[in-house]
């Protein structure tokens, strides 16, 4: 395990720093609005919020180019936004509208955007890892230079597919950056209650992977670590496992009464809110002042309001199309 990069170093570029803050704020406000829309019964089914984990999604995404492929989980709103998918089509998807990114077939857990190489939200824990291995194999066989970023949670490390996928990616030296967003809970089961070895980054070495762990509440540290990991993979060294240590502030899903952890624990972690931490750091560096922050807030609020308007206005997929996307025409 290498040392985690620190954000206490030199002052970052102002424009980039504000971009990171904005991306995290967009996710936070999107998720808050999603929760509101769920309570208004505009959104149904499962809704897993990313609040508290914004720095991992935003920070790590900075390491990847449009040529790279992204694989995510059922808690993927943050990844989709950070990848550049518009809030409009994401909100519409959760409303179940034809204008949603998956035509209302997927909902909250299954965002896809082929053009952005966002290969989706996978809702079987661990199920995305083999897909990421295959995408990376395709890159290698076609002699393309893209890498595949594979986000998953700490719950996935208990699945056989985690171990199989790490082994196969390392065996075949495939360009995968495995990004474990360790929020300490597999739904309601604490990491120490389902893993004998709770240092997730330590699970890489037995499979021959390089790995490290980083403070997932520090967006600059995450960005630096992810760029280091991606550079390692791009150089042809095989896959890399980066553990992003984070925490979700909200319950597992809207259906979760959150009985398995204490209010004190949640409040303790909220002191390390990635948005508030970064906001304070930017102010200390002299890169952010109240007027700029207010302007940012207003712009993001307007964007999210527009997403709701777009979702409301969108048509439903006609029922006649029910069977349209089961199989497609034979290739010529």
């Amino acid at each position, binding site marked *: 395990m290498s040392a985690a990069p620190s954000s206490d170093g030199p002052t970052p570029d102002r424009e980039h720093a504000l971009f990171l803050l904005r991306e995290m704020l967009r996710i936070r406000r999107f998720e808050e609005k999603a929760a509101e829309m769920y309570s208004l019964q505009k959104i149904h089914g499962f809704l897993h919020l990313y609040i508290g984990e914004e720095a991992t999604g935003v920070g790590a995404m900075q390491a990847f180019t449009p040529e790279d*492929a992204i694989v995510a989980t059922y808690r993927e709103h943050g990844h989709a936004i950070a990848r550049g998918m518009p809030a409009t089509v994401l909100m519409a998807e959760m409303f179940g509208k034809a204008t*949603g*990114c*998956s*035509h*209302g*077939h*997927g909902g909250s857990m*299954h965002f*896809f*955007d*082929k053009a952005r190489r966002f*290969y*989706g939200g*996978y*809702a*079987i824990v661990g*199920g995305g*890892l*083999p*897909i*990421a*291995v*295959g*995408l*990376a*194999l*395709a*890159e290698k*066989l*076609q002699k393309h230079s893209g890498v595949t970023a594979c986000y998953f949670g700490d719950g996935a490390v208990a699945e*056989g*597919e985690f171990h*199989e*996928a790490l*082994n*196969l990616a390392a*065996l*075949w030296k495939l360009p995968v950056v495995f990004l474990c967003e360790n929020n300490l809970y597999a739904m309601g089961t604490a990491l120490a209650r389902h893993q004998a070895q709770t240092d997730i980054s330590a699970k890489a070495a037995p499979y021959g992977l390089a790995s490290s762990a980083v403070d997932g509440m520090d967006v600059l540290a995450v960005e630096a670590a992810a760029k280091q990991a991606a550079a390692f993979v791009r150089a042809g060294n095989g896959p890399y496992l980066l553990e992003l240590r984070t925490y979700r502030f909200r319950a597992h899903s809207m259906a979760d009464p959150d009985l398995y952890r204490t209010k004190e624990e949640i409040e303790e972690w909220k002191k390390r809110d990635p948005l508030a931490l970064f906001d304070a750091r930017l102010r200390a560096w002299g890169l952010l002042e109240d007027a700029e922050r207010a302007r940012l807030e207003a712009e993001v609020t307007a964007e999210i309001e527009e997403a709701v308007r777009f979702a409301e206005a969108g048509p439903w997929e006609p029922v006649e199309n029910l069977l*349209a*996307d*089961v*199989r*497609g*025409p*034979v*290739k010529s």
Partner: protein
Amino acid sequence: MTKMTYREAVRAALRKALRSDPRVFLMGEDVGRYGGAFAVSHGLLAEFGPERIRDTPLSESTFVGAGIGAALGGMRPIVEIMTVNFSFLAMDQILNNAATLRHMSGGQLNVPLVVRMATGGGRQMAAQHSNSLEGWYAHIPGIQVLAPATVADAYGMLLGALREADPVFIFEHATLYPLEGEVDESAEPLEITRAAVRRSGGDVTLIAYGGSLGKALQAAERLAQAGIEAEVLDLRALRPLDIPAIVASVAKTHRAVVVDEAWRTGSLAAEISAQIMEKAFDDLDAPVARVCSAEVPMPYAKHLETAALPKVEEIVRAAQELVPRHG
């Protein structure tokens, strides 16, 4: 036309696909250096190299998932799973991803993946290597399920499957690999979703597929000696089922026996019986009969295994019971 075995026909199709499309590669357990558990891919490693003939770890879920991912990424993977019994380790990837991604992504993604595996009993492999569970796969929308019963189909259906935009599962009955037949290697890829009448007759339809086709043809021969002309319909595709072909034959014979090596309960034979009842009820002169495996895990001892599997004499008896004796 070239004379070859079923095994050689699958290999010839693999070779043709590998030669003609650089996106095609084969991966699975022991497909390379070992030459395939059933020797199907023997010699391909030497010809195409380890990048395209890939031995995998015993990680069914991950190498099937990697096939799905590689298909998403622009390749045309052929994944071999050693037997149908092993394929259930990959059921998450097959059901939740391969069969689902096109729909779940609103039509953005498609998974042009071909998965081949051996199926069926009759070789004293006991309860963990002898099942015919292709009917479970035929339950799933989004995947196509093929069961080549002839040498020509072993060749042509694999090439046809590679033209599909979405996942195709091919079930090769393990007793068929030594079967000999003729293949036209210059022919266009076969139409892969239509059933085929393998013997024409007017008294009763024997509906079979894969490893049961030979038994149905033998039964028809014996029935002919007894004065009953049986039509033998080879399903070829198990999903989608060629219902019009089934209905057309039943409309002609008014009687049907479904032969299916799977267990009777909840089987493909049950689905076919229901379809005939729904779509050809007025044509029927007798209830649809089924000849399936006994509802027991497959035993090892030869006499017990034989007792558990569908037998020619059972098919003959079932047909005779449907056809009036004056016939």
